[in-house]
C-alpha cells in the first residue's frame, strides 16, 4: 500500500504537507517533520520586511481549535537565504516557501528573490489583511489574486506556484478559477477561518492583544471540506486540502472532497510532531480495510 502522491510536479511519499506558520520556522524543525512522516513542508510565510508580529497572546488553544493573530512575524525575505540553504542541505522531502505581500507588487519582488533559491514550490499567502485594500485580504478579490499569480509566474520560472486561499471569500471557487486561469499550478485551501474573538469576562478584555484572530483546527474542518469540494468542481489543478485535519479519516474525507494533498497545521498541537506518523498510519489502516492500493482513486469521489 502506498501513500505516494504527485502535486504540481512534486513527488511526495505521503500526501501530508506541513502547513505554513506551524512550527516551520527553521531547518531543524522542518527536518523533524520529515523524520515524523511529512511528505513535504511549508515554511512560515515570509514578507517584505522583518516583523515582530503582534504582541502576545498571539496563539491560543480553544476547546475545539486554535485562534491566532501572530501578525506575520518573520525575518523578511532578505534575511532568509541562509535558512533556505540549510534546509536544502538537510531536507530530503520537497519544501515550499510561503510568501506574503503588504502590497501587490511585493509578491513579485519576493518571489523573484525566493525563486533564485530554488525551493520546490512557492505558496502565495493572499489571505492576510493588507494596506492597499483597506485591511481586507487580497484573497477576497478574484482580480487581485489573478494579478498576483500572473505577476509571480513571470518571475518564478519553472517553480510551481500555489496560491493559498481564505474561506472568508464567499466565492472561493471563483477565486481558485481565476488563479488557475492566471497560471497557478495548485491551490492550497484553506487559511484560517473567522476571524474570531475571545473575551475574558473577568477582566472584560479581548484575550488576543490584536483582539481578533484566525480560527483553525477541528472546528473549521467542515468549512475546509466545503471549500475544497467547491474548488474541485471549478478547477483542474490539484488542491492541498488544509483545515482541521487531525486524523487519517479526516485526511481521507478531504481527499474525497477533492484534495490531492493534505495540509497539517493545528494537528501538531494535538499530537505533536508525531501527528504526521499517526495520520499516515491511520490512512493506511483505512486503505487496507477498504482495499485501496494507493490514493489515486480516492480523490474527489464524493462528487460522484
Amino acid at each position: 500500500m502506498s501513500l505516494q502522491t504527485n502535486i504540481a510536479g512534486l513527488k511526495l511519499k505521503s500526501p501530508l504537507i506541513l502547513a505554513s506558520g506551524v512550527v516551520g520556522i527553521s531547518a531543524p524543525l522542518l527536518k523533524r517533520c520529515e523524520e515524523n512522516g511529512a511528505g513535504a513542508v511549508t515554511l512560515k510565510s515570509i514578507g517584505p520586511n522583518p516583523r515582530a508580529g503582534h504582541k502576545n497572546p498571539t496563539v491560543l488553544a480553544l476547546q475545539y481549535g486554535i485562534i491566532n493573530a501572530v501578525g506575520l512575524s518573520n525575518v523578511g525575505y532578505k534575511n532568509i537565504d541562509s535558512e533556505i540553504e540549510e534546509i536544502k542541505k538537510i531536507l530530503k522531502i520537497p519544501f515550499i516557501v510561503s510568501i506574503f505581500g503588504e502590497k501587490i507588487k511585493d509578491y513579485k519582488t519576493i518571489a523573484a528573490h525566493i525563486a533564485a533559491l530554488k525551493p520546490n514550490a512557492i505558496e502565495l499567502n493572499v489571505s492576510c489583511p493588507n494596506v492597499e485594500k483597506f485591511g481586507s485580504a487580497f484573497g477576497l478579490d478574484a482580480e487581485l489574486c489573478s494579478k498576483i499569480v500572473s505577476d509571480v509566474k513571470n518571475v518564478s520560472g519553472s517553480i510551481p506556484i500555489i496560491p493559498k486561499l481564505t474561506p472568508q471569500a464567499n466565492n472561493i471557487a471563483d477565486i481558485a478559477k481565476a488563479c488557475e486561469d492566471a497560471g497557478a499550478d495548485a491551490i492550497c485551501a484553506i487559511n484560517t477561518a473567522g476571524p474570531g474573538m475571545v473575551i475574558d469576562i473577568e477582566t472584560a478584555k479581548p484575550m488576543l492583544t490584536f483582539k481578533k484572530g484566525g480560527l483553525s483546527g477541528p472546528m473549521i474542518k467542515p468549512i475546509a471540506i466545503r471549500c475544497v469540494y467547491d474548488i474541485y468542481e471549478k478547477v483542474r489543478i490539484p488542491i492541498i486540502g488544509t483545515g482541521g485535519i487531525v486524523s487519517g479519516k479526516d485526511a481521507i474525507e478531504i481527499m474525497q472532497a477533492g484534495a490531492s494533498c493534505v495540509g497539517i497545521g493545528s494537528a501538531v498541537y494535538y499530537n505533536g510532531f508525531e501527528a504526521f506518523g499517526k495520520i499516515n498510519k491511520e490512512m493506511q489502516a483505512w486503505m487496507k480495510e477498504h482495499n485501496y492500493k494507493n490514493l489515486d482513486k480516492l480523490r474527489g469521489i464524493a462528487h460522484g
Partner: protein
Amino acid sequence: MVKEKKSNEKDFGKELNPQAGYSNSIKDFHSVKLTKIIEENPNIKTFYFDKQIDAKPGQFIMLWLPGVNEKPFAFSNLGKNCSITVQKRGPFTEELFKSRKGTILGIRGPFGKGFETKGAKNAAIIAGGCGIAPLKPLAEELKKNKSKIYVSLGVRNKEYLFFKKEFKKLSNELKIFSEDGSVGKKGYPTEALEEFIKSKRIDCVFACGPEILLKKVFDICEKRKINCQLSLERYVKCAIGICGQCAIDDQLVCRDGPIFSNEKLRRLKELGKFSRNAEGKKSCL
C-alpha cells in the same frame, strides 16, 4: 529521564461542562487574583495567585497582563499558594510590578515538562539570577524525596539575591556567589559544582539561569558523566508547541522543554550559541 507529555490528545475536545464554563473557551486558562506580593528585594517580587494549579517544579505559565502582553514565568511556589518570582527587566515586568494585591490577571498553563527528581540521591542545584526561582520548589520536592541537596546560587550583586533563607533551610550545604562580591564569594556559582561533585557523590545536577552558566554546567557534567537537567530559556510565544518561536535546534523549549537532560542537550548545536528573537531571527547569545 524527564517525563514527556507526548500529546495533547487527551485534552482534545475534553469534556466541557456548560454548567461551569464557557463554550469554546481558552484551554488551560485561569483567571487569577493576586493575593499577596512580596518584595524580595528592589528588583525582584513574588506574586501569589488565588488558584491552585497542579504543576511540577520547572513547569511554567504564561502570565497575561490584559491588553499589554503575555510572557513566560516559572512557578516559584506550587500548590495552594502558588506564585511566580519575577525580576524587573523591561516593559512587561515593569508593568507587572505596578499591580497590586487584588489585581485580576490571566494565566495559561502549566506548560512544558518539569524536573524529574526520582533517583537523585545527592543533588546539586546551580542557579544564576532569577533562575533561582524555579529551583526552590525543586529543592522542596527533592527534600520530600529525602535527597541530599547541595546548592550554589549566583547573583549580580546583593540586590539580586532572594530565597536565601528558604534555601538555607532546604539544603545540606548552600554556597553563594556574586559578581561584585557584595554577597557571598566573588565569582560564579559553577565554581562550587566541581567541588560538590568531588566530595558529595553528586548523581544529578539541576540548573537554571543564564545560558553561559548552563553551558558550563553541561560541559562539567558531560566530562564527569553525571546526569544533568537544565532549564533552558528561549523566546516563548504560544507556549503550546505550534508557533516554533522557542526552538533550539529541532526542540521546542515550551513543549519538549524547558527542562532538558544530557541525551538531548548533547544534540543541541545552538546551546550557548544562538537564540531567536520575536521575528524569528537567529542571533548570537
